[in-house]
């Protein structure tokens, strides 16, 4: 071999070897995509931090977080799946949990979580995982178990000359009757009373935060029988109807009022909305209290969101591994600053106080910890989207001053009964 030929061979090898190595690396490279409904910068920064931590352990894996609008989240997600472009991981709402878990679309997680060192699956509360489990197999990790509570604008309540919820709690009188009375007084004084946030006379399932106080449910525990005609539900809906149209304690249909703009006495929402409380000029004195007692006694309601891995993801094993990393004890603590955790070891005042600085230890104990421990999740069902729309269409005739509550409830069951 001449020197010139040797040089050429060496040069080609020098060029080809890194190229070949690069090609090998490119083949190993895994890009994971997770769809989420939050576009909050702080949330995204935290997710990126977790993804960067994972990338240090697995340099070939990168994770992108795809923010989809909340209003059409599930529709967009299913359209992506129909179009052959499913994400690897996705947030899933509690209402559609049954659809996703029973469809076979999600990958099972138990084995991977159990085999992940330091994961401690037993630390995750069984109550929190119930919705996401089928035949003992977990199909999504409940990363957010957020109790519903009542935020109070203490300034408006005081200005209306009403007793504050805190005083009513002390005297054991924090009931729905009194909560509506306080709201009616504030409404009479020129502001709005009580808002069930996100209800907007469309998302009726959020009214479960009131009707559970009567022991009412949308359908039987096995999900096969409509329960809107049960006396407890009719009583609860009559109470809500009276609060809206007679006592004017709740804004009526078509009235847009925002509690966090300081325009209403109270709002029922999840504690994660504390971040919306205004600071500076628009700030007002506020309180956070548990849901009032109903005729059936004390109760709590939680909203949940899970993260699942799609079976037909291009990299299901890598996606499951990332989910195991994202929900391990260390990262669950990070997530807890925005999303109340399902891990029992994190459900203590000390941990939650450090991650939720705007809430007092009493609020965390009475609302967050007790709420998560005792709360039942909002109504959900297989084929929930269709059931939701069908019930919504029938309930529209309830939101009139002269509505016959029992007749409307009957029409709901007539229409939705065959779907259950």
């Amino acid at each position, binding site marked *: 071999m001449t020197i010139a030929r040797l040089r050429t061979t060496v040069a080609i090898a020098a060029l080809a070897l890194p190229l070949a190595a690069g090609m090998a690396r490119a083949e190993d490279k895994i890009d994971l995509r997770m769809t989420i409904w939050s576009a909050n910068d702080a949330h995204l920064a935290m997710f990126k931090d977790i993804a960067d931590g994972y990338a240090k352990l697995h340099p070939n894996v990168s994770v992108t977080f795809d923010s989809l609008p909340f209003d059409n989240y599930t*529709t967009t997600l*299913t359209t992506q*799946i129909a179009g052959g472009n499913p994400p690897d991981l996705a947030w899933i709402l509690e209402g559609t949990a049954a659809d996703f878990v029973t469809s076979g679309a999600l990958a099972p997680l138990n084995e991977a979580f159990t085999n992940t060192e330091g994961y401690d699956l037993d630390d995750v509360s069984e109550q929190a995982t119930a919705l996401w489990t089928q035949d003992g197999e977990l199909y999504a990790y409940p990363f957010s178990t957020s109790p519903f509570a009542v935020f109070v604008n203490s300034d408006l309540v005081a200005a209306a000359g009403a007793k504050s919820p805190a005083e009513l709690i002390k005297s054991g009188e924090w009931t729905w009757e009194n909560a509506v009375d306080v709201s009616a007084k504030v409404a009479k004084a020129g502001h709005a009373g009580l808002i069930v946030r996100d209800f907007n006379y469309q998302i009726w399932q959020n009214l479960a935060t009131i009707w559970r106080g009567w022991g009412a449910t949308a359908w039987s525990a096995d999900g096969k029988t409509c329960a809107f005609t049960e006396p407890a539900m009719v009583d609860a809906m009559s109470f809500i109807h009276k609060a809206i149209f007679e006592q004017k304690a709740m804004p009526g*249909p*078509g009235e847009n009022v925002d509690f966090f703009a300081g325009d209403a006495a109270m709002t029922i929402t999840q504690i994660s909305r504390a971040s919306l409380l205004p600071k500076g000029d628009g700030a007002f004195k506020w309180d956070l209290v548990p849901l009032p007692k109903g005729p059936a006694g004390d109760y709590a309601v939680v909203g949940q969101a899970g993260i699942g891995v799609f079976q037909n993801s291009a990299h299901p094993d890598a996606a499951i591994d990332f989910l195991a990393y994202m929900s391990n004890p260390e990262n669950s603590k990070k997530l807890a600053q925005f999303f109340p955790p399902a891990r029992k070891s994190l459900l203590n005042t000390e941990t939650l106080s450090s991650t939720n600085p705007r809430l007092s230890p009493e609020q965390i104990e009475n609302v967050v910890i007790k709420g998560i421990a005792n709360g039942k999740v909002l109504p959900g069902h297989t084929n929930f989207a269709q059931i939701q*729309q069908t019930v919504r*269409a029938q309930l529209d005739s309830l939101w009139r001053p002269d509505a016959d509550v029992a007749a409307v409830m009957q029409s709901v069951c007539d229409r939705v009964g065959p779907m259950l």
Partner: protein
Amino acid sequence: MAPATSPTGSDHTGSRRRPFWTMERRDALAGYLFIAPQLIGITIFVLIPLCLVFWFSLHEWNVLAARFTYTGAANYKALLSDPGLGEVFGATAIFSLGLVVLNMSLALLLAVLLSQKLTGITVFRTLFFSPVVVSLVAWTIVWSFLLQKNGGLNAILQVFGLEGSNWLRDPTTAMISVIVVQVFKNVGLNMILFLAALQGVPKELYEAARVDGVSPFKQFRRITVPLISPTILLTSIITIVGSLQVFAQIAVLTQGGPGMSTTVLVYYLYQQAFQFHRFGYGSTLSIVLFVIVAVLTFVQWQMRKRIVFYER
């Protein structure tokens, strides 16, 4: 040129081979090349999807469960037992009828008024046309604020001592609101078409009619309407087809409510396919919509002999 001979040497002068690229063929090729982009576009974006939608309509397609099962005519039979479909057809008919009547009559009225030669008339023409170029969703969102119970429209009515309705929450006013919002959005387009047609009507016809003592209304009925009849046919086809495809206004303003009162066919098929994950049944509804649009357009086209003056 020397006469063509075969390799065997036999004479073919009697059947002289014509060159392949004759003038006609060249013209035809040029024509096909000109229409090729449009044909390719229609094939990819209209014909193939149309065939696919028909194929999907013969299946049960559950996206989440990745189930795609051939069910034959089951989805078409399901149309007959769908409890909501009667209300949907009713809402679609009311919407289309209301929209077509209001849009066409208002557009013609505006066109007649704005065809006058007055100073500054172009400003008014621009004003009435401007909603056409506004984003449909932005337009509808603004109207959704105006039509709230505590929104802008009721605030204006309150100034005059009137109590406004809860426009989007009452079944009757909700449908009227959706129609009016859509009419205001698109009336400018029909108005411009009518305006152009009106300006093409010979002025001497009106002068002759005036000399004969014909009243302005009779002039409108006997001269204007017949002479702009081709435009009336065109706008009626465009408006009816458009009214059957309304979606964004319903999605933003009412989401099909209250009850099912504004759930028109397109919104219903969107719900079935994309919200309830029933893509097979949604495709069946698309085929139904396609047939309705095709039949209505065909009927209108057949009626052109009665409507359009030069077809008689």
